């Protein structure tokens, strides 16, 4: 099972090309909407990429509880453990 740091790095790699703010370093503390400027369509695309990368299905019910990159790391880690 991947460690949190590995999961974070993989998520950052997926997020980077979707973020339209030039030169912004993606870190765990950043808010997906307010800091990274992601809209709902982009979030859905990111979920699909994460599902492929980690070979998991991500229930959309978890979305209201995810605000930051770090929140996403915790959820992905949990779903990977439950596989």
């Amino acid at each position, binding site marked *: 099972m991947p460690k949190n740091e590995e999961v974070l790095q993989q998520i950052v790699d997926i997020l980077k090309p979707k973020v339209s703010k030039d030169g912004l370093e993606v870190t765990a503390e950043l808010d997906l909407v307010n800091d990274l400027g992601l809209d*709902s369509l982009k979030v859905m695309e990111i979920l*699909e990429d994460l599902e492929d990368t980690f070979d998991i299905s991500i229930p959309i019910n978890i979305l209201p509880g995810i605000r930051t990159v770090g929140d996403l790391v915790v959820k992905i880690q949990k779903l990977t453990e439950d596989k």
Partner: protein
Amino acid sequence: MIMALFDKFEQLANTRQAMEEKCSDFFNIVMEDISSATEAVVNGQKVILAGTNNYLGLTFNEECIRASCLAAEKEGTGTTGSRMANGTFSGHVALEHELSDFFGRGQTIIFSTGYVANLAILSTIVGPGEVILLDADCHASIYDGCRLGGAEVIRFRHNDAGDLEKRLQRLEKRNTNVLIVVEGLYSMMGDRAPLADIVSLKKKYGAYLVVDEAHSLGVLGQNGRGLAEEAGVEDSVDFVIGTFSKSLGAIGGFCSSNHPELNLMRYASRPYVFTASSSPSTIASTRTALRVMRAKPELKHQLWHNANLLYSRLHGLDFNVGPEASPIIAVQYTNVKDALVIWNGLLELGIYVNMVLPPATPDGGALLRCSLSAAHTTAQIEKIGDAFASLTGNQG
């Protein structure tokens, strides 16, 4: 400092303002006078309606109007109550029986709108610990129904049976009930679900299947029963959901099934229990429209004739339409501004189509969505095509 109540809508307000500056008509479409199933007056101008989902053109059918008027005179303007209380009239029960007969299924429940039908069924039929697998392009009412219930909700890529199977495989060890939800014709692009493949997977993994035939009722299948009929898989579809607000020209929704337990939803489903039932006039016109639809297959043939005519014209003009003809013909634009220019141009030329903006569009672009009707004349279809043709130079 606490954020003011409406601050969270700031981005929405800014987007609306910017749109209004470019195209004020978009937010001010009022049908001032509706003279037929295909013509209205908008902003003082007579237009051909090419975006109303009025597939069989039954909104102005004389029998339907007469039945509706008679019901209002005989039973009043409304039921003023829920089906559970005083809102079940003999017409509601009769329509449920007639829909069961039409679909060849044991039972049917009708709802006040198609939106409520999805809310009622999807929020109730599966619950905590169970899973809904829905096509990513499903209608908002399906998403909202899922959200209202307690089941886990997982999307699969649009019309991708391989992606659906991957998700079914991952769920195997959970050993729980899985409900797959797809649509017959997808409302934005007018494409069909690959239903035979989905039925194979449903059987292989022991899942249940809902098909929302909102846009395919009266449009697909030899008898107009939708995609399940056309694909020859009706026996494998557990629940058919649909609406009265498209081919049947009224308002309302339904769910038909051979599972006798469907009737328990009348007691378990809050959107069913706590909504006023449809008015007698609505029920009467819907029952008549269902009879007309069954008796006149030529309406469906005329609809497809019209759809093929416009699709060929737009395809020939190099508009970015979908891969196959359908009564829903959507022209895709990556740039919202380009779509606005064409939409506005069409309106000035007396053609009304739907403009669809993100996030309602499948890929984040904009759509000019036409929906055809059996009531369109060939001359009207040609006029719609001519209007698009005259605007080709304005395409981005």
